[in-house]
């Protein structure tokens, strides 16, 4: 029944999810130039996978969050790792190879913009719901 209330919960879950997405992007960008001494240890770009919160899923009791969104899991980007011949690098393996991350900076920038826009959308939803709620309360005045 208290549906305007649950708008806050739903938009809140989305704000949280988009913030996690922004955090993974920041982490990817920060690790864009890390090198590793084996292909296995090389940094792989992380991507959150979103999932809709449906009926049977755990939700916070304080806020109705049904229909919101959560980060289900985080996957590694499957793009192949770049290797570089750089014997002077302290991390180089016995063949003089270092393994760079597979982060694509351009792609991360785009991802960051998209996350920020989605965040803004949800902030706008909260703002509108807040206004409508206070106008509804104003019915008791006048």
């Amino acid at each position, binding site marked *: 029944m208290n549906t305007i209330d649950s708008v806050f919960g*739903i938009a809140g879950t989305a704000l949280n*999810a988009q913030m996690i997405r922004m955090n993974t992007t920041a982490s990817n960008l920060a690790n864009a130039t890390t090198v590793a001494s084996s292909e296995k240890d090389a940094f792989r770009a992380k991507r959150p996978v*979103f*999932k809709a919160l449906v009926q049977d899923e755990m939700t916070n009791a304080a806020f109705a969050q049904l*229909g919101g969104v959560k980060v289900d899991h985080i996957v590694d980007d499957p793009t192949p790792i770049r290797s570089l011949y750089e014997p002077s690098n302290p991390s180089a393996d016995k063949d003089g190879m270092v393994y760079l991350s597979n982060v694509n900076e351009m792609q991360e920038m785009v991802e960051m913009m998209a996350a920020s826009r989605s965040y803004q959308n949800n902030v706008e*939803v909260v703002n509108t719901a807040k206004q409508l709620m206070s*106008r*509804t309360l104003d019915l008791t005045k*006048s």
Partner: protein
Amino acid sequence: MNLLSGAFGIHEKALQVRSQRMEVLARNIANADTPNYKAQDVDFKAMLQDVQRESLTATNDKHYAAIEEGPDNGMRYRVPYNSSFDGNTVEISVEQAQFGKAAGDYQATLQFLGNRIGGIRKALKGE
């Protein structure tokens, strides 16, 4: 007897449906990036009928059971203009436009309610 029982008319129920629609649209916007999420919307007429529905009560055991229509909560899946690779049918510009309109509709209903309340107040004061 109940002079004020129907004072708000349909607007009371309408406000309920409007706020439900706000919730549905908020859900769509929240899931704009969720793979395989299907955007939904409200069929206003069907939902208003659903909240107004009052079932018939049998006062005598010889009464036939009322044939009730199947429940229709008014939820419909949106048909997207363009399909997307991840199976998500939320088009954020459409949702934003609809959300703005829904907010306006909600305020219109509020205005109607406010006017009714003002009228009742006036009548009670008797000025």
